[in-house]
């Protein structure tokens, strides 16, 4: 779910960058220095998983996006994390692009932040992996769908002629969102059993910020 270079006219590209900027700044502000290694390593895992893991669907396969998971684990820090991974994708594999880095960061990062506000607290209170699965699935699916709507919205802003592409992409993406939800749910139920403290990082951010 990327807007490619060349599609976005300058006003849209600049507006996207301006929209993403406060979020990135907020993420950097709450990120404490001693959390940088943890945040960086988790973002490396998220980056890797979205590249190497292919969930089979019929004869084809889909890559997970893991926006919801990023939000649950990193909170606001997912904004700078997505900025970096999108830059790396443009650099190493030519997904997305350099002029659309701002829009794409917004499209991926803000739903993650939303998932953090909606589900991180519930995940920290979740006892038992069943609950964790449902909250994780909800986070993964909702973040994916919101990302899709942001993507479709910015595509239409880039040119009304692109509305048809966004419309055609809708039904398959509903399906992918469900798969993303199941996948995120399984990851969360695993993490709550094995290492529940992993969801505490963004919360300790907030406590640190209040001090």
């Amino acid at each position: 779910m990327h807007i490619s270079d060349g599609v976005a006219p300058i006003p849209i590209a600049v507006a996207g960058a301006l929209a993403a900027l406060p979020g990135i700044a907020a993420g950097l502000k709450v990120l404490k220095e001693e959390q940088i290694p943890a945040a960086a390593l988790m973002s490396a895992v998220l980056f890797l998983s979205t590249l190497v893991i292919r969930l089979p669907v019929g004869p084809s396969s889909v890559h997970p996006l893991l926006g919801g998971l990023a939000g649950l684990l990193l909170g606001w820090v997912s904004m700078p994390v997505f900025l970096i991974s999108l830059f790396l994708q443009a650099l190493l594999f030519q997904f997305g692009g350099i002029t659309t880095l701002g829009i794409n960061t917004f499209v991926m990062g803000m739903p993650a932040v939303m998932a953090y506000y909606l589900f991180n607290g519930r995940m920290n209170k979740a006892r038992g992996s069943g609950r964790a699965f449902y909250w994780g699935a909800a986070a993964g699916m909702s973040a994916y769908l919101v990302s899709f709507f942001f993507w479709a919205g910015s595509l239409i802003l880039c040119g009304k002629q692109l509305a048809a592409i966004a419309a055609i992409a809708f039904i398959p993406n509903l399906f992918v969102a469900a798969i993303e939800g199941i996948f995120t749910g399984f990851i969360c139920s695993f993490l709550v059993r094995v290492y529940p403290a992993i969801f505490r990082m963004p919360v300790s951010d907030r406590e640190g910020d209040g001090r």
Partner: protein
Amino acid sequence: MSCTTFFSGDTFIHRLDPRPKILVTLAFSLVVALSTNSGVLCAGLAAGIALSAMARIPSAALRKRLLRVNIFTAVLFIMVPATFPGKTAFTVISVQFSMEGILWSVSVTLKANAIVLVFAALVGTTDPFTLGHAFHHLRVPGKLTQLFLFTLRYLDVLHHEYVTLMRAMKARSFKPSMRLHTYRSFAWLTGMLLVRSLERSERILEAMKCRGFRGEFHVVRHFRFSTADAVFSAASFIVLAALLSCALTGAGRLW
């Protein structure tokens, strides 16, 4: 996959100071994205081709990247002219393809390819760690640079862990198929990687504290802005200024 795959080589473009390379790429992308002038777009594409030829980028790698970009633009060519209002260029089974839609798709294709080529030739020829170093000099916030460098540093390490875990799964005859079992296995794999990465990050933090880390990477070797860099910056500035003025005035429009 090695995450330090950049286009290694030893051309004069590789030896340029990364700071002007980054800035020129950024300025170039903005000018090209701004322009609707077909002449400017063709000139931009020519500049991209020239730069990647000068950087001797391996053609197989470049072809792969361009293919990825142009799969997307191919979709544009099918979809957009059929829905774009305007003069009909031709009709296929009662679907009217408009001239304006075709021209719009052409211009997006030119833009995308031009930006990809320049990006590959200038930023892609700098190894990512040097890029992090250059970001530091370009006053990118310190935490963002550190996050970038740490992510990059451990990508290969974590990829290695992924390969190990995957091999263990395959040894137990794991075969991906469209079943919940597959999704669960992949999820546990990701979860395991996350847990291990967090534990590793604690060890890294302790090791860094042991060595007196105070939240700052000290840059030992500074970049040197040489005559070649000055020539490159001046030449790019002139080309970019010319492209920008054509883009704004509409001079040199081809169609």
